[in-house]
């Protein structure tokens, strides 16, 4: 159980404080409610480019990193389709340094042309390193626009095309900043050996005078129900054929989200899971095959991906995945399998709660999803899932008409 206190500043900044007496460090996590789904379809990759620009200095402080490092702090950030998350860990006595730095870049960025030019290039190299110059690196660049026709999830956080990054202008950067990087669009969560009484005056001091921005609705064009299966075949310079199959699933707040997460675990988490026992070891069709969900806030994807053994055909691989699905629809899963998956979730959850940074991050992101207490309630949501639920979601969602398949063939 993670105990926490909450406050809302008059400018809308949502503050969460968790007390942990066992650590000399403090974690400061700032979640902005802006991700790739908030981007203009003609300017994709912006939320992520922005994450880079946030380290290029702010209105009153030329360097973000140096002052933080000189008090022993460390920081990083990540961007998803739904949020952008910044985090710092530092010795507890230096908390105010982190608040000073984070508040100044919320107040106003330096908007230096040089920083924009360099970071555009860094992101282009990141695009190369992660998506183009990796075997199978472009899979989700291909799959997303196939699975989504309307929702902004149809592009990945890096963007649809690197041209969007190349062409980003300072004017667009400024508009994006003043729209999304406002206190009323952010959650600040702090965990360490301190209480709200100590933290609030410091947060008010540094964040209190930052003006609120316009209220954002966070509404997005929703996908229409998929009525027909889709597929795409590509050929690439890779050693093994691979197959990717995705299905639309419910949103992050649906009770079925937890059922899907458990179903993916039953299929492929660990050596005892079905895919490992039956498809890798038993039938020896795949060298690796996984099922997973993405954790998207809006209705996301339930995915399967497999690397084929050299003597497995795409038809065999495809058939094997459907047989696994059909079996669940027909016979369901056993109580033991479900309990095993739940127990793994419980252990993972307990380990995650041993880190002050994980706790701060978990609270902040939960607050953005729904409310901070979701971090405590989630285990119960997992426990509530029944074998009937698993069978039902398989029947309702894992249908041919709701599927999108990518056949990723090795050039011979």
């Amino acid at each position: 159980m993670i105990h926490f206190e909450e406050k809302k500043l008059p400018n809308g900044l949502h503050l969460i404080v968790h007390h942990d007496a066992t650590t000399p460090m403090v974690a400061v996590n700032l979640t902005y409610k802006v991700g790739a789904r908030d981007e203009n379809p003609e300017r994709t990759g912006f939320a992520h480019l922005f994450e880079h620009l946030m380290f290029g200095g702010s209105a009153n402080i030329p360097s973000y990193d140096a002052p933080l490092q000189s008090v022993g702090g460390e920081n990083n950030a990540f961007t998803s389709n739904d949020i952008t998350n910044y985090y710092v860990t530092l010795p507890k006595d230096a908390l105010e340094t982190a608040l000073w730095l984070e508040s100044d870049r919320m107040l106003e960025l330096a908007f230096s042309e040089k920083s924009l030019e360099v970071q555009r290039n860094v992101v282009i190299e990141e695009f190369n390193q992660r998506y183009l110059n990796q075997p199978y690196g472009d899979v989700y660049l291909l799959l997303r626009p196939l699975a989504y026709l309307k929702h902004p999830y149809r592009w990945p956080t890096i963007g649809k095309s690197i041209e969007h990054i190349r062409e980003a202008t300072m004017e667009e950067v400024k508009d994006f900043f003043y729209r999304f990087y406002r206190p009323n669009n952010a959650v600040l969560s702090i965990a360490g050996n301190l209480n709200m009484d100590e933290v609030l005056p410091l947060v008010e001091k540094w964040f209190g005078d930052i003006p609120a921005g316009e209220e954002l609705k966070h509404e997005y064009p929703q996908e229409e129900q998929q009525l027909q299966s889709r597929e795409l075949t590509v050929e690439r310079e890779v050693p093994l054929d691979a197959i990717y199959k995705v299905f639309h699933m419910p949103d992050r707040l649906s009770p079925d989200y937890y059922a899907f997460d458990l179903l993916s675990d039953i299929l492929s988490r660990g050596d005892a899971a079905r895919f490992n026992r039956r498809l890798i070891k038993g039938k020896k069709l795949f060298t690796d095959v996984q099922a997973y969900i993405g954790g998207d806030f809006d209705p996301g994807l339930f995915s399967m991906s497999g690397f084929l053994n050299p003597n497995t055909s795409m038809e065999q691989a495809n058939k094997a995945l459907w047989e696994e699905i059909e079996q669940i629809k027909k016979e369901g899963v056993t109580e033991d399998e479900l309990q095993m998956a739940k127990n793994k979730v419980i252990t993972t959850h307990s380990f995650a709660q041993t880190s002050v940074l994980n706790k701060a991050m978990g609270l902040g992101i939960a607050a953005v999803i729904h409310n901070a207490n979701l971090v405590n309630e989630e285990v119960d949501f997992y426990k509530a899932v029944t074998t009937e639920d698993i069978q039902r979601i398989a029947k309702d969602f894992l249908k041919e008409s709701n599927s999108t398949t990518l056949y990723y063939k090795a050039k011979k």
Partner: protein
Amino acid sequence: MDRTIAPKVKVSEDFNYVKVKSEQLDNDIPLYYIDQPEMDVIKLECIFKGGMSTQKKPLLAKAVAELLKEGTATYSSEQIAAQIEAKGAFLDTTAKADYLSITLYALADQLIHLLPTLRSIITEASFPEEELQDFIDNGKQKFAVNNEKVSFLAKNEFMQQLFGENHPYNDKLALEDFDSINRADLQDYYADYIQNKSFSVMLSGKVGEDEKYILNQHFGSLDLTTSKSEGMDFKPLENPNKRVKVEKKGASQAALRLGKLSIGKQHEDFPALFFLNTLFGGFFGSRLMTNIREEKGYTYGIGSGLMSLNEAAYFFISSEIGANYVEETLAEIQKEMQRLSEELITEEELNLVKRYLQGSLMRSFDGPFSAMDRYKSLYLLGLDYNYYDHLWSEFSRMTAEKLQTTAKKYMRFDDLSIIIAGA
């Protein structure tokens, strides 16, 4: 309020950290533990000395580690997986350069149900032929995929250049290596270094009297002997190639690895070299990152590091860079390295790196699992906590002159082997 002025904060100069406690099981197995009673989870790690350094063929130690959980005299692979996973636990077996470890992550109250399986793995692993064949077949396919990655190619060639063809620290594999190992090799390795051989146990998390009692019940009655200890008779290469190109057609980026053999944690110059490496390429604000990423935008990331093994130590620089920027990047690396010897570091930068290092040392001890990892790194090299106390005090009194002297001795660009994997 003037936002241009940093708030005054006072960060303690004292270095307080959690140390392990130690006991012995009934059969003298050393037990090191860190107890945090508020937790409900436990991490148990069994450490067997040897690892890759004692293997007679490439891949052998990794194969043994991988197959430990794939069958014993009592349990099948499937049973082992089910026994561990039904309790929500995770079992990880790995072979590293100097040791092999079996690690269990679990809810502490499940420990009693998990130890019989672990005991079986340690005393009676059976290495079924079919499981070995799966390991070989799948291993080859994964190897083929990895060989498409420039970073993998560069790292492997670097180890090859540093240590030479047959050195066990050289983990570069060839496809034939997968076919060269057989069941008897695995059984021999297991008999020599794991089966009923003495090992150490590291417990962290919730480690109360109950947990220790249960551990002693299951492991304290094992009849153990000391494992075969042979010194390594391999020597690293004396004159590695200075520049090697690994061809990878169509790559839009090249992976760079530069480096050389260096001094390890046991050496008196190590704290200064560690400081110097951090300044040079060891953190986000390092000179390499500032110059090559933040100024020039040639790469998503570049860094340098120091690795201490039992019988060797090395220094390396690694990056993936745009194919057009290779020569420019090498020139900048050379320039940055020369600056270390030629210019004295400013007071400001010295203090920044000092505080950063102290903060990161504190962070690296935060929580029982991290604190245990710090102890493990000492234990494996035969060091004790004096190492960290010494490191901290050396950081505190580091001077620009000392860093310059150290750079002249250990950071010469001309000494480096340069590996470039790309088009």
